[in-house]
């Protein structure tokens, strides 16, 4: 059993999985912001029925295990709607909707942390409610939310591996394929673990850089 030969042979294949993994994580973060932010605004400023609906959405997507959501969407919802979606798309959708549910709560907390006087002040200089939210509340709230939002990244990264269950060709799937091809277990699992830890570390570095970039001196919590 020549481990070095196996690794050099299969390493490119394993590395290919990084793109799928990062694709899943990227779409989860992107959808999380695209849907999570409006949901947070709706939950704080919306009318009762809107708040209720968003609450149900959040409860559903945060209360269910990723695995159950993946099975539900891959075998149930997507075929039920007559869509023949590839596994990657289903995985990205599920992680994205889940991301939206989790991130909306981070943004909600941040919006609520902006003092109410700001809204009153904005309204009193003639802004509409929507203008005040967009131009006064959100720019502050987003900066408050950023450290908490960055902390979603490692969770989503590790959750993305569960897409193995529906056969998305990401790191975890490729790892177990290599294991079943070569019958070498431990070293390959550990290489996979190393790649995940590296991705985790590198991603956090990038997010901290973004945090620093959009930070306004003297505003918000100093330590990111």
């Amino acid at each position: 059993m020549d481990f070095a030969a196996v690794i050099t042979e299969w390493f490119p294949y394993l590395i290919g999985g990084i793109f799928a993994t990062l694709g899943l994580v990227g779409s989860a973060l992107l959808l999380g912001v695209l849907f999570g932010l409006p949901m947070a605004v709706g939950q704080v400023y919306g009318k009762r029925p809107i708040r209720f609906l968003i609450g149900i959405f959040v409860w559903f997507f945060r209360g269910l295990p990723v695995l159950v959501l993946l099975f539900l969407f891959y075998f149930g919802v997507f075929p039920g709607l007559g869509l023949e979606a590839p596994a990657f798309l289903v995985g990205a959708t599920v992680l994205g909707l889940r991301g939206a549910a989790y991130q909306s709560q981070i943004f909600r907390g941040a919006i609520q942390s902006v003092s109410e006087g700001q809204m009153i002040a904005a309204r009193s200089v003639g802004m509409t409610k929507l203008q005040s939210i967009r131009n006064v509340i959100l720019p502050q709230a987003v900066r408050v939310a950023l450290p908490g939002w960055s902390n979603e990244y490692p969770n989503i990264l590790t959750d993305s591996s569960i897409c193995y269950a529906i056969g998305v060709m990401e790191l975890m799937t490729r790892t177990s394929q290599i294991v079943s091809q070569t019958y070498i277990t431990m070293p390959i699992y550990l290489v996979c673990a190393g790649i995940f830890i590296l991705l985790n570390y590198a991603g956090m570095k990038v997010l901290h850089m973004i945090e620093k970039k959009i930070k306004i001196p003297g505003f918000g919590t100093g330590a990111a």
Partner: protein
Amino acid sequence: MDQAEFLFQILLPVLMEGMIVTIKLIVFTAPFGLILGILVAVGRVYGSKPISLLCKGAVGFIKGTPLLLMLFILYFGLPSIGITLSAFVASLVGFIMCNGAYNSEYIRGAISSIKEGQIIAAQALGMTRMQAVRHIILPQALIRAIPGLSNEFIYLIKYSSLAYMLTVIELTGAGKMVATKYFEFTEVFMIVGIGYLILVTITTIAVMLIERKVAVPGMTQSGRNMLDIL
């Protein structure tokens, strides 16, 4: 076969059996996860340099790698070095490690939030360092760690579904079996989902009550609502 018959005579009995396995996984994991969390946290804060580094490294490794990979290592990887675990035990070990690692972070944070003067004061009264940690620091730290620990418990309910990936037939696995056999995916997984929502919601309410009960006025913040906890 009509829907009601399928639901009550086929699906629910199988799901109930799965639910029992899920509850077993959770109930066996939680106490060991808590103990492991306390040990690792104390090791990190008060242990000697090598112990502290070891704990830090282990927590970093477990938090940085997916739980699914950890389960594969325990179930498919360990036999290559002569340790064979059953699927159920491998899942338990994986869950305890994961739960313990995250718990230790909350407990560590809580321990560091307690003033160092307390240990000095306890030692001045003649307690050894270990006694001071056990009787003075930990009781306060654990109360402060309750919100984090209960969040972890709720996560545990959800990631217990990963045991199915090691062929443990728990709630998700039971659902998958029925769904595949009768080709009723949407319905079955919605009901499996409701099963988890029931577990999570009951736990959330219990957590709210416990947090209110053990809240020490002026020391802990209380009054989290459902959405904060879930």
